[in-house]
């Protein structure tokens, strides 16, 4: 025989109370007693309670009373009833279904050990959304409902489940158990009091059940800050987190407690850092405050533990199997990374009361550049992916000779050896032993390459292969993704991306091994996309733009000049239009200067270097007298190019676009960029840099970008024309044929002649194996290579040179001495040249094959040199006498160290500023649980204020 007493506690809940009370009174299993408790409401809740339950059934308490306290107070005044007495706890914002009580009691009848039962909680507003069917907790205090965010109730979780705890909203508890456990802990006025009670119930040997046949709708008004919390001044998130930690620590047995403390302290620190990175300082503060508040009051914790001492250890196994399994943390981490990639905030707040309020409507800038989904089907139905696959296939066929084999090198690319750690060392070391030794600071692109190599598991060759050989599909992808906002017409985007990716600049860069141009070529569409975001006022895009421009500038400094000129023009045009654009532009253009300061200063001192790019200069081929028609047709000269007329279709279509009256502005701007790019390309191609003609690849890529935008932007008109008359349809067909002729012809020529040029696979290792094995530390191998009657030489210190070492300047006087000694050695005239070389640490002289007979005779005739091997693949001579290796000079690298640290710190700061974190456009839906004090922007605060308190 059951006797049920319902206790409804109200606190400023008039908004929901009426419905709640109506639902309580409408139960199919009538209640034996009803008690209302009003915790000092100011909105008339007390009156509503009195109207429903009668004046003498309502208890009025002070405003600072907590939920548990209120229930204690009410029960203290209730005499015990006959039979099995049950207490049904209800919040003012929790309306039970008419059959809820009946279902709960039925479940209680089925299981005599069941002492605490809870209904299935659904959302108040969207009544299909599941909130809770029992709650558990992880050892780190994370509340776990086992539900997806905003999961709809379709009966998928139905049944009576053994759970760790149920919410106090709708909790049905046997009164004797309540008395035995002394009820809710009044030290926890809000949040996790239910968890604590149920834990204790479980420890005492009772069962806690979630009964899905009983349904209640819950508004979670306190947790969602739909009303002010009067019991505490603290933020609910902090309160929740603190209580969670407190409950966990109070109820765990001793050894588990120690583990838990360690875990929670580390976990809190990690979360704090992540919150800071995500630009959510309020969350970080709350996290630390909650932990500090628990740890700073050991007395309180000790008292709580003392009160729970009975059977804690014995009952723990019953609780333990209901806790969140430890593996869930990893799953959550994976979810978080996935969410981050999808553009969500990087940290899923562990302190949130429920996980429903995630934003799924947000779509921020930059998303289109990120792969946001792993869904295979969606991938393959996207035209962009299909385009990239097609470009990748063309690339694979064209680069058939470059894909497998030995070292990749040639043109501007030194044979790629070494790994990420070598590159990092090259970047941070103060004194470079390479060649004759150098105290110059390594160029910054070394750091970029080192970072990329690290991403590619430390394999530099892999990073270089992907970036250089994969330049065409990567550029196609970036062009396709970057034009998402600029050109909505998908076929035009596909055409644009394909044409861009197969430009002569790209194939030329691959053939001549110009890694820098390849990287800038891939980045250029991203620059364009970010630039449009900047003009739209996005500050984050400005930081991202600045960082990517830094990367491009580090490889090809000319790109900065071009961007700066265009940016200045844009600033003049847009400064009046939008506020803040000038500042964003300053951020975008200032970031590279700040991050590359010393290196850029070196370039300013030697302006000729601005025309150079990363890699070897003397062997990178360029056309010294580039024809005028090649310049206009965006053909930069050098190896690996199709005939210059391949791009004629592109130019023709862009010219045709000039005839359209609509969109004239965009077309004109595109043509302006094109003409500017060609002008710069003309100037560049007429200059010499680094001992050879400069290569105008990057300005031509700029020009092509402008031309492509001019041609593709009005392309959606084609659909209109196609609907027109026969003549128009013919015209459209002609334009489409001409337009697609360019990428198709470029791909055809590329595949037909192959992608190789000076760049080739299987370049012999410049460091002969015998010499590498035989050199002691610091000993050098002199590499001689006669070419066109000239003997080129370089010093290798025990290994092949790394990318970037060719850009280190050597002391001039030592260089002259070496040059004279090499000349004397190559002449075969005898003398003391070998001794000079030996004093420079040269232990081996290597001549790659086929060995020039004159040079071989000269080396053979030197009595101080002993020939070790001679074959078609090369000759190697060993220094017969004493080889002295000069000890590395003691370099005071403190300036360098300071700069490296400063650069790293600046980089981290800028990465944080550029990365997607706290959203500028936080979704303003009804469930926004963004704290008021954490919202710096006025826009959001005004929205918050509209919510009735």
């Amino acid at each position, binding site marked *: 025989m059951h006797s049920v007493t319902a206790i409804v506690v109200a606190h400023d809940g008039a908004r929901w109370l009426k419905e709640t009370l109506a639902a309580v009174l409408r139960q199919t299993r009538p209640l034996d007693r009803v008690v209302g408790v009003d915790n000092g409401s100011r909105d008339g809740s007390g009156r509503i309670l009195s109207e429903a339950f009668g004046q003498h059934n309502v208890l009025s308490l002070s405003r600072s009373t907590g939920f548990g306290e209120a229930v204690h107070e009410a029960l203290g005044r209730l005499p015990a009833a006959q039979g099995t007495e049950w207490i049904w706890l209800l919040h003012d914002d929790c309306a039970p279904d008419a059959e809820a009580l009946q279902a709960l009691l039925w479940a209680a009848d089925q299981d005599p050990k069941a002492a605490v039962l809870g209904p299935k909680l659904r959302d108040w507003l969207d009544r299909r959304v599941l909130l809770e069917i029992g709650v558990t907790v992880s050892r780190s205090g994370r509340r776990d409902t086992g539900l997806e965010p905003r999961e709809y109730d379709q009966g998928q979780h139905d049944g009576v489940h053994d759970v760790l705890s149920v919410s106090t909203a709708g909790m049905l508890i046997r009164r004797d158990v309540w008395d035995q456990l002394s009820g809710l802990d009044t030290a926890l006025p809000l949040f996790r009091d239910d968890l604590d009670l149920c834990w204790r119930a479980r420890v005492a040997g009772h069962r806690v059940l979630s009964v899905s046949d009983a349904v209640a709708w819950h508004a979670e008004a306190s947790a969602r800050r739909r009303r002010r919390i009067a019991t505490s001044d603290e933020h609910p998130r902090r309160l929740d987190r603190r209580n969670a930690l407190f409950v966990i620590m109070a109820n765990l047995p001793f050894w588990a407690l120690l583990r838990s403390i360690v875990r929670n302290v580390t976990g809190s620190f990690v979360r704090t850092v992540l919150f800071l990175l995500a630009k959510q300082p309020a969350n970080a503060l709350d996290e630390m405050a909650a932990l500090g508040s628990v740890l700073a009051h050991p007395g309180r914790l000790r008292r709580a533990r003392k009160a729970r001492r009975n059977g804690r250890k014995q009952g723990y196994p019953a609780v333990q199997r209901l806790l969140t399994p430890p593996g869930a943390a990893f799953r959550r981490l994976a979810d978080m990374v996935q969410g981050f990639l999808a553009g969500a905030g990087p940290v899923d707040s562990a302190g949130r009361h429920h996980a429903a309020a995630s934003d799924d409507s947000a779509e921020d800038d930059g998303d289109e550049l990120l792969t946001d989904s792993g869904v295979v089907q969606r991938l393959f139905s996207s035209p962009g992916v299909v385009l990239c696959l097609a470009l990748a296939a063309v690339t694979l066929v064209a680069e058939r000779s470059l894909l497998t084999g030995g070292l990749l*090198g*040639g043109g501007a690319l030194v044979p790629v050896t070494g790994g990420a750690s070598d590159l990092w060392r090259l970047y941070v070391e103060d004194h470079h032993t390479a060649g004759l030794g150098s105290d110059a600071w390594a160029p910054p692109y070394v750091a970029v390459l080192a970072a990329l190599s690290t991403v590619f598991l430390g394999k530099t060759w892999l990073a270089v292969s992907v970036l250089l050989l994969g330049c065409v599909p990567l550029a196609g992808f970036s062009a396709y993704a970057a034009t998402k906002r600029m050109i909505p017409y998908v076929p035009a985007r596909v055409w644009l991306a394909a044409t861009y990716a197969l430009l002569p600049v790209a194939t030329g860069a691959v053939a001549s091994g110009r890694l820098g141009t390849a990287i800038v070529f891939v980045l250029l569409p991203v620059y364009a996309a970010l630039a449009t975001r900047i003009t739209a006022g996005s500050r984050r895009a400005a930081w991202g733009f600045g960082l990517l421009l830094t990367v491009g500038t580090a490889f090809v400094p000319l790109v900065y000049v071009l961007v700066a000129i265009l940016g200045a023009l844009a600033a003049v045009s847009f400064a009046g239009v939008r506020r803040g654009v000038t500042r964003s532009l300053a951020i975008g253009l200032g970031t590279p200067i700040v991050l590359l300061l010393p290196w850029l200063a070196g370039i300013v001192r030697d302006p000729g270097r601005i025309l150079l790019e990363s890699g070897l200069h003397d062997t990178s081929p360029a056309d010294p007298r580039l024809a005028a028609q090649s310049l206009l047709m965006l053909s930069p000269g050098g190896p690996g190019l199709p005939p210059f007329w391949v791009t004629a279709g592109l130019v023709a279509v862009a010219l045709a676009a*000039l005839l359209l009256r609509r969109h004239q502005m965009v077309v004109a701007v595109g043509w302006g960029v094109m003409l500017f790019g060609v002008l710069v390309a003309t100037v560049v191609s007429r200059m010499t840099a680094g001992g050879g003609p400069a290569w105008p690849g990057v300005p031509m890529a700029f020009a092509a970008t402008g031309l492509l935008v001019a041609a593709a932007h009005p392309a959606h008109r084609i659909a209109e024309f196609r609907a027109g008359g026969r003549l128009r349809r013919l015209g459209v067909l002609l334009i489409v044929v001409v337009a697609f002729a360019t990428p198709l012809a470029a791909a055809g020529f590329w595949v037909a002649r192959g992608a190789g040029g000076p760049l080739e696979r299987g370049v012999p290792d410049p460091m002969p194996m015998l010499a590498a094995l035989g050199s002691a530390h610091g000993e050098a191998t002199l590499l001689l290579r006669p070419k066109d009657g000239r003997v080129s030489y370089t010093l290798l210190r025990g290994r092949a040179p790394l990318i970037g070492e060719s850009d280190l300047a050597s002391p001039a006087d030592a260089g002259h001495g070496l040059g004279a000694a090499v000349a004397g050695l190559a002449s075969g005239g005898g003398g003391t040249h070998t001794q000079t070389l030996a004093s420079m640490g040269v232990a081996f002289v290597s001549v790659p094959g086929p060995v020039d007979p004159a040079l071989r005779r000269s080396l053979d005739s030197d009595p101080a040199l002993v020939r070790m091997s001679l074959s078609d693949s090369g000759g190697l001579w060993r220094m017969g006498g004493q080889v002295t290796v000069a000890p590395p000079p003691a370099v005071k690298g403190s300036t360098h160290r300071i700069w490296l640290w400063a650069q790293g710190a600046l980089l981290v700061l800028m990465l944080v500023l550029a990365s997607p974190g706290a959203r500028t456009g936080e979704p303003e839906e009804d469930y926004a649980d963004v704290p008021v004090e954490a919202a710096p922007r006025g826009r959001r605060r005004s929205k918050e204020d509209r919510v009735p308190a």
Partner: protein
Amino acid sequence: MRKIVENRFGLLALVLVAIGALYGVAFATRPAPVARAAATPLKAPVESVTTVCPSPSGTRVSVITPSGAQGPGAATLGAVAPPTGKNGKPAKPQAPLGVIQRPGRLWQREVPAGGGPLAVAATGSMAAGLEASQTAREKSGTQRGLAGVRCVEPGNDAWFVGPGPAAAEMTLYLTNADAAPADVTFMVYSGEGPVLSERGNGMILQPGESRVVNLRDLAPSPLVMALEVSTGSGRVAAAVKAVYGKGLGVDWIPAAAPPATRVVVPGIPGIAGPRELYVTAPGEQDTVVQVKAVLKDGSYALKNKETVEVPAGSTATFDLTTGVSGQAAALVLTADVPIVAGLKITGTGSSQDVAFTAGAPSIDLGSVVADGRSAKKQVSRLVLSAPFTAATVRVQLLPADGTPPAPVEVKLPAARTRELTLTPPPGGASFSVVVQPQPGSGPVYGGRVVDEPTPDGEMLTAQPLAVARIWALVPPTADSPGAVLP
């Protein structure tokens, strides 16, 4: 302006004008094609030279450095000895046979019989053009005749073409004058093909070690042969002496130019007697060698002796007596595979003497002959050929005593050979010769022949002119990180 912007074709026209302007700018600024200047090497004096006279005992050793180089310098003559003694201690330095410090003056010394090879090491001003040779003169016995040889620089590869051990007693002199051991390999190409010795075809010479190898031990049967002495590591000075026997002649075989598709065999004197050409094709392909003689009146193929067939890996002989005997000549051999060539010159008389010449490089940088003699009946001849284009050559005699006479300019028309009889100034019986092609000359080849008529037959010796070690060609160098790329 507004009209232009509003007209449908206005923008197009503007862009076309801009494109035209850009084209004009690009066209006008296009640089003229520049022929890339070929890198020309500089000439620099040689700074150190080491030569080894293979067997100077009982011969006259001549050492000369032409004057011209400035600064101090010295040439030291000393025996080749291991740097360490038998018990591993450093050997006592032996007293040098002579130290020469004055360039431009011929140094001659009769070396007493006995003793091993002699190394001439020169540095500084004495190195630029140092030339040394040994010449023996025997009036009777198996060694009767004149036998002279250039003292050779240690090298990695040397070719000798001449008779085989079945025809004459062939002796190979090997010397390692360096501080590193030399790993020497022999390869013999006989008339029947390459000969692989059962006793191994290699040896290792320790520093300072010298060996005399009877070639009969390597390959007893060949009548003619080419011998390649190469080293896998280290360097060796090699020389080959052929002794035909009593009354049949003796001489050293000069090192031949390494295999090439065109070989010039210069220095054939205008002396009567048989001439026999040896041609070797060391590759793996049979070939037909075109033979052309460059004589004093022109260059032409000899009648009925236009070609020689040489099987792969073997040596062929070709009797040219009826073609070039009694005429100063040079031979130009061309083939489609690399060949090596040598020539035997036989004197007249009841007791014959032989001399050998061989394929030689052109003496673009000049040539020095250490030993010239003109005493009693001895005649020194200089045979110069310009087989391709005309050349002018300056010939300077440097006598052992007395003032040097004024140099003589010799004009060589294209495809002609000239023979000069070298007459020293009165009193100087011994002299050296410096041959210097003048600027603008084509390739010049030559040889020096010494002959001495005796009652029982003419004694003679010959040597092709070698490139003088006066100048080294210093190629332009460039410190280029790109050298790591092919």
